[in-house]
């Protein structure tokens, strides 16, 4: 494929160095189409599973939601989303076919997200806890009623 490049017009490495191809993936048409088809089906299936879990959460919310089960379902959806992201980046964007050093210059900075997400969600959580402790009005007006036990709910009603 590198003989398509004219070094006088193109300064890309493959043109300057014919022994180095820009296209690391020398897959033929049939193999390529198969790979794209496989990835498309995979992405669709993951999306359908995510939607199914979304509906499951919706129907559980109608009843008394078991808190940790919902959390588990949401965690599964997050992992499925990361799987989708992996396939999009690695197959559709061909990052998986690049040189390892280049992949690392992209992926290593993204590791900042690990700190970013944990730190800022913990910050929000802490703010909520502090407000609930010191701002009783906030707690009373915003806490979902399902969090108050049936025993204390009528007692509150009598107080009014």
């Amino acid at each position, binding site marked *: 494929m590198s003989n398509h490049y004219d070094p006088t017009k193109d300064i890309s490495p493959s043109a300057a160095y014919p022994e180095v191809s820009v296209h690391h993936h020398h897959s033929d048409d049939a193999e390529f189409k198969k790979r794209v088809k496989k990835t498309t089906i995979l*992405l669709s299936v993951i999306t359908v599973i995510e939607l199914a879990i979304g509906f499951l959460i919706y129907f559980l919310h109608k009843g008394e939601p078991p808190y940790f089960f919902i959390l588990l379902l949401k965690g599964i959806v997050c992992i499925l989303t990361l799987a989708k992201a992996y396939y*999009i980046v690695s197959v559709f964007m061909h990052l998986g076919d690049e040189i390892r050093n280049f992949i690392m210059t992209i992926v290593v900075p993204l590791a900042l997200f690990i700190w*970013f997400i944990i730190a800022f969600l913990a910050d929000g959580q802490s703010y909520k806890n502090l407000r609930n402790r010191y701002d009783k009005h906030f707690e009373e007006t915003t806490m979902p*009623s399902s969090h108050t036990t049936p025993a204390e709910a009528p007692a509150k009603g009598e107080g009014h």
Partner: protein
Amino acid sequence: MAHEATVNTHRTKWWSGGKSPFNIEYGKVMMWYFLMSDAFTFGAFLISYGTTRFSQNFWPDPNVVFNALPGAGHANLPLVFVSIMTFILIISSVTMVLAVHAGHNRNKADVQKWLLWTIIGGLAFLGCQALEWHHLLTAEHATLIDGKIELISQTTRHNPWGQLVHGPELTAALQNSSPETLATLIHENHLSTASHAELAKMPVDQLAQMVSSSDIHVRETGPVAFGGFFYGITGFHGFHVFSGVIINIVMLLMTRSNVFENKGHYLMIEKAGLYWHFVDLVWVFVFLCFYLI
């Protein structure tokens, strides 16, 4: 394997100067670094949304907020419309892969064909988003405000998706509401065959009875931040889709006028493709944060 061979070459002479140590052309490297920085922008937006959400005792259930489908009236169809949008974007990502591949093979006709499909997919997505925003901004919902029922829509200042109101609180709110508001609510939900004007003249008791015996949900106001984050982040993503469509149109026109054919390669399509896939990638996370969890 070809892969091992490149790694080997890279070890021996890639960094000795005179060639790309990453074996990619400059433009593609820079597109990747731009996309990485853009990932941090979107990440920061989504994480700030997460921080706000974690700081609240109550957050609206996305299945309740996003339950409309254009043309389906008041039917309760959670997640259906946004699934359609998600599949549109996945498919348009696939057509972009095919356009890039056709570029590798220097197949001008196929590049044009797949670029066109990608553009159509992008426009379809934007159209869906416009419909979704229009519905959220204009559809009014019965909300408990200051002890009475008001009809409000989802804006950056108001959120009608609070906790459900029922029991004595609902009865009192219905009694305090204006007949005008209740008449509008009844009329829009087709609970009565009477006209709006006739309904507005009815006593409040009768109107309140009609509402409380129906399946209309009355909610408290929800967290105001919801609207700003939703419109801000999906709007910023929509803007990326829009600019991606523009870039793809430019690519289509350049392909048509033989710019890449004369250059001898279609590497520019590859960079446009990277941008387009990134738009799809971001949607995967927006979809997760706003619609699924």
